[in-house]
């Protein structure tokens, strides 16, 4: 029996959160599922997708896109660019799905593709000229996102954004995206020891920023 028919065939489009019109709902917006305890792994969903199942893709997308988009948001600090990069990343995943090593951890593979796409795009944008609006002026910067977070989380976010890129990425992957040290090392092309060191140094820098912010506040 092929893997596709093993569990995808029994899942309807409604259950996976796609309305069949191309809208994919995400965790939090999806209806509760009865079979949640028998949740398939990302790797098995990828395998379904490779075998040509669009249901497999929908379920994979629902699981992977929040983490991937969060990672891209932090890299780009711009929602539009993050969405563009999300599309680029998924189109690359689509093209390269036949070269995915079946059973290998999927999230590091996807994040590494996203990271590489980000650096490619950044390199290309450095050589591009800034677009002018029709009246010849530089476009206005996008309005800042509304602040709804708690003060402490917001302070941490600001402190995190001010960290050197290497520390920020290591902390983002291990503390926020939830990768293991080995997986984060794989994504960043370095050793787990180096990741440990970056996270530690990032922590020290964060602590300093948070203490300084607390002293300012009091």
């Amino acid at each position, binding site marked *: 029996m092929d893997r*596709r028919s093993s569990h995808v065939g029994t899942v309807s489009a409604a259950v996976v959160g796609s309305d069949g019109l*191309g*809208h*994919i709902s*995400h*965790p*939090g*917006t999806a209806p509760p599922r009865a079979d949640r305890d028998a949740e398939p792994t990302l790797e098995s969903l990828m395998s379904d997708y*490779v*075998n*040509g*199942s*669009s249901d497999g*893709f*929908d379920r994979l*997308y629902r699981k992977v*896109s*929040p*983490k991937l*988009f*969060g990672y891209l*948001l*932090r890299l780009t600090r711009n929602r539009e660019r*993050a*969405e563009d990069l*999300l*599309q680029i990343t*998924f*189109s*690359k*995943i*689509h*093209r*390269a*799905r*036949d*070269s995915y*090593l*079946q059973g290998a951890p999927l999230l*590091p593979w996807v994040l590494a*593709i996203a990271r*590489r796409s980000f650096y490619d795009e950044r390199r290309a944008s450095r050589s591009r000229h800034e677009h002018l609006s029709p009246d010849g002026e530089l476009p206005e910067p996008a309005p800042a*996102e509304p602040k709804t*977070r*708690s003060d*402490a*989380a917001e302070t*941490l*976010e600001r402190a995190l954004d001010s960290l050197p890129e290497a520390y920020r990425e290591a902390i983002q992957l291990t*503390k*926020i995206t*939830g990768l293991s040290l080995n997986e984060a090392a*794989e*994504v960043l*092309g*370095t*050793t787990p020891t180096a990741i440990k060191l970056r996270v530690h140094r990032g*922590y020290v820098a*964060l602590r300093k920023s*948070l203490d300084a912010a607390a002293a300012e506040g009091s």
Partner: protein
Amino acid sequence: METDELFATLQEKEQERALPSDACNKQIRAACTGDLKACQAMSAKTRSLASLGLLLFVGLSVLLLARQRLSGVTAAALWGATGWALIQVLVLVFGLTRQRGSSARVRVGLALLVPTAFFGYLTLIRSSTSSFSEFVQQPQQTQHAMHCGLFSFVIGSVAAVSIMLLWRRTDPFTPRITGSLAGLAGGLAAATPVGLVCPGTDGWHLCLAHGLSLVLVVALGAVLGRRWLSP
């Protein structure tokens, strides 16, 4: 509040914030499911066996092309060639087959150490070393070196490019390192049999024609690997 608690808060907030727009979701879904068909994915084992077959084919073809020179080959040279063939297999295993299992440091080490060891081997087997100006002033020697070097480079590049095509889009992590190791395997597939049948024993000839061509194929692999091996 402890930093870990703050990270947990941040993680929750990010999950709420990190939802792409509906338009974006729709475009991605259309792009990824529009032409969705089952793929016949080649396993790492199949790719490795195909790469091994390719290297064997390249090596034997070079030997077949220069078979009239094989009668002069000594047993020591044969042992040397066998050793390099085994190193090629090692490069293939650590560079490509186990690209997610081997540490990047080991793989970079292989890409740097093996060409250095090859230069060391060439220095050991040389019978004489003329001065560089003497070597350049002898048109017959320079022509022979050009011929050998170009032949090794072209055959090695063809082998490296074929290996990279077999492993296309398989490595988003370290494509440059994987590419250079594919170059190393391809370069050795050419340099080993060419070295076996080449009568040149001058140090400059060996280093420039045989060693440098290998280094150039490794460099070509690193450049092409970034483009071809990354998804």
